[in-house]
């Protein structure tokens, strides 16, 4: 019998409580237990940022923490940021500026960018590049991601 612990937190505004193996990563919990598959896994060394979610509004790599460490906090995933009908300004900016190709890095990029833009409404390209250092994209060469984040940050400031 494998020991479990109970975690309670909110995910995208909904209260969640579940019994999990203590070694369960937050990303595994989100994907496997809650079916929130928008948060991706791109590595096993905490390098790629495909798994970025918000914990109480700040971006974290959900592969780098255990589900139990999120206990009592508010988790937001890409699914909770906006919907196809009502996009978050950062999501809209990625579409408008062709900031994605295969889309695999995209949820992590957007979640990371939203946190960044909250603190910096009119970033320079250089600042965007420095911030995104923890998110790897293999498709876009970052050019359009940087343009997306700049535009998204401006749009967020206006919204």
């Amino acid at each position, binding site marked *: 019998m494998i020991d479990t612990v109970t975690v309670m937190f909110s995910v995208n505004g909904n209260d969640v409580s579940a019994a999990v*193996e203590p070694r369960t990563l937050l990303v595994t919990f989100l994907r496997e237990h809650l079916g929130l598959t928008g948060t991706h896994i791109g590595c096993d060394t905490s390098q790629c940022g495909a798994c970025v979610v918000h914990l109480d509004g700040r971006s974290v790599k959900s592969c780098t923490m255990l589900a139990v460490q999120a206990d009592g906090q508010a988790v937001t995933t890409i699914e909770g940021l906006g919907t196809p009908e009502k996009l978050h300004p950062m999501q809209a900016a990625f579409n408008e500026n062709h900031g994605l190709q295969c889309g695999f*890095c995209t949820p992590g990029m*957007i979640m990371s960018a939203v946190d960044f833009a909250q603190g910096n409404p009119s970033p320079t390209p250089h600042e965007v590049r420095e911030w995104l250092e923890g998110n790897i994209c293999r498709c876009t060469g970052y050019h359009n991601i940087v343009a997306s984040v700049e535009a998204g940050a401006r749009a967020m400031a206006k919204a």
Partner: protein
Amino acid sequence: MGLMSQPIRRTEDGRFITGRGRYVDDVKMEGAAIGYALRSPYAHAKIMSIDVEAAKSAPGVIGIITGAELEAAGIGHLGAAFPASFLKNRDGTPRVDGDRALLTVDYVRYVGEPVAFVVAESLNAAKDAAEQILVDYEELPAVGLIDEALDPGAPLVWPQAPGNIALDWAQGDEAATDAAFDRAAHVTRIDLVNNRVVVNSMEPRGAFGTYDKVTGQYELYATSQGSHPIADTIAKRILRIPPERLRVITPDVGGGFGLKMSTFAEYPLVLIASEKFGMPVKWMSERTEAFQSDSHGRDLKSHAEMAFDAGGRILGYRIKTDFNLGAYGLGFGPGIQSVVPMFVVGGVYKVPVVYNHVRAVFTNTVPVEAYRGAGRPEAAYIIERIMDLAAREMGLSQDEIRLRNFIQSHEMPFRSYVGAVIDSGDFQRNLHDCLRQADWAGFPARRAEAEKRGKLRGRGLAYYIEKTAGGASAVVISFTPAGRVEVGVGTSAHGQGHETTFAAIVADKLGVPFDSIDLIQGDSIRAPWGGGTGGSRSLWNSGNGILKAADAVIDKGREVAAALMDTAQDAITFEEGAFRVHGTNQFLPLLEVAEAARAGSKLPPELKARLEKGLDSSGTHEEKGDTFPNGCHICELEIDPDTGKVSVISYDVVDDFGFVLNPLIVAGQVHGGVAQGIGQALLENCLYEPGTAQLLSGSFMDYTMPRADDLPSFGFTYNEILCTTNPLGIKGCGEAGTVGAAPAVMNAVLDALWDKGVREVDMPMTALRVWETLQRAAAKAAV
């Protein structure tokens, strides 16, 4: 105005930006088990025994599959895509590919080769159990590097391949080339290493298989660049079942870059496991596992020589390349440095005679296969590095040496010595435009300014060409009762935005609303047959195919519309999405005609019988005629001599892709391609340890992926010089950025270091390597 040539925003983005994409790992199936591959920790070993008994009874374990069991069941092996008769040694003898079972039985030949497949209720349970499998290995000497493998007396990866030579291939005329060198006024020689890279699509590989024991049907979800080739390989070669018993579905795919063209062992393994254990089985690669088990790219060493006359004109070109094939010749592996780039080894120049001698070398490393450009970036790298060096040696400017040797527009179609027929292009114009765009003339001032800041500034130019087109992928346009237009294609996008670009063609051709069109791709049963997406040729295949299928729709529609409006066919014209009776205001929209044809009740019986499928039509672009994307890249960078750090300051590209269907998407392809080239040139390096062939760069911690702060923004423009050999006039853009980037960057690095006495630079020019190179040059100067 039509949608074609417009920068339409991508329709597929909607699901990706909201987390609603569906990749293989997102597919859910009731009662699914997890598969995990136990992999060899040794580069070369004989397997004395495998004991799975303890592991079988570990908690949560469902079962374990070994190679011996697969052999007994008659399961087939993996292999190379090229028939033996198509690609052989220059003396006519057959090449050696080795023999790769899904799970090895007697020997392991690289670190990461799968030995057993554990199926359990969870990944953790599978991993825990795998640790309890007892494999008795007898370690053998191993070779991981080309030089080690070629050393006389090196241990052999395959006894049937003496000297570890898998393939000894050549193109061109050796004697005629030697004669050209005898006449030369100047000969430039260069030795180059093209470093090994790991593809690293951000989504690792994965597969999800089910077997229905009632119907005997297999279904596989796989991360692929095309479902049909994988279905064919698994059905015909591995499971040996009629093809209709297997359906391969490719859902959303997180990047491919050539990696996901091939059939990997884990794909049939999840099907075999599902059949054996009676439940769906999923396998997802982890990143560390990907480093060990994905096919790698590049890894070759070349010696090249170019003979010139006194005017700097090329007389002949001689290349000798040895490339690392890994432990097995799989997929496109044996062809990547031989037949794949053979038509572009001479670049954009008039090269009267060539001799290109290429050997594939077995090593105890994971097989090397296609990586973006597959052989063409390597060919461009060699010729653009040697042209750069030749210019320096002969005192010509970088543009002048190229202008003197370019194939001229007025000479096209031009049949090159290597047999390429280049239909169209204007190399001179693209070069001039790129020089202007990059402010080539203003460089000396920028260099002087950098020098004041203590920085070494360099610029590099490269003019690449690649050849694409070929293969056949069918298109089917069909009309649903709900009024939607389904476009089935045999290509398979994994980031390229085909849902948007293909729909634009259909919307323009048929005049139906853009948002009424659904793309059906990546499904070996629902989509028509095709070779998948790779080699920058999906628009060539599917785009031109759509034109054909759409023409067939219109022809049928005209007949139906004539019947419905009770008039003669030749009185009907098709304009703006409607069939119109000439000289009247009578018309019927295409979608109404399609629905009437589908229902059939209003059609004359003869027509109804003939148009059994209504207006649904298919088309395949099969016309011969290659395409030659080409363009000029200019890189400007600065080096900090104290740290060796290279900073790319600006990067300019002027391309010719023929007709550009969606400028936004095309620019994105170029950006991503250039980033991969810069990554290879400055950062990325896959290393195997000398002596042991242990993989040293096995994670993102020790393999440097290009990140946002490593790259500049890119200047990209294009000249649309239409391709004359296909109706759309397109040339293909997917790989081009990667083809041109590495030589442009490395020429710039050499330019920055030249005045310090540096004469040789090899990829990747990491900060450490630059610093060491500068120290060596300084020490030499001091002597």
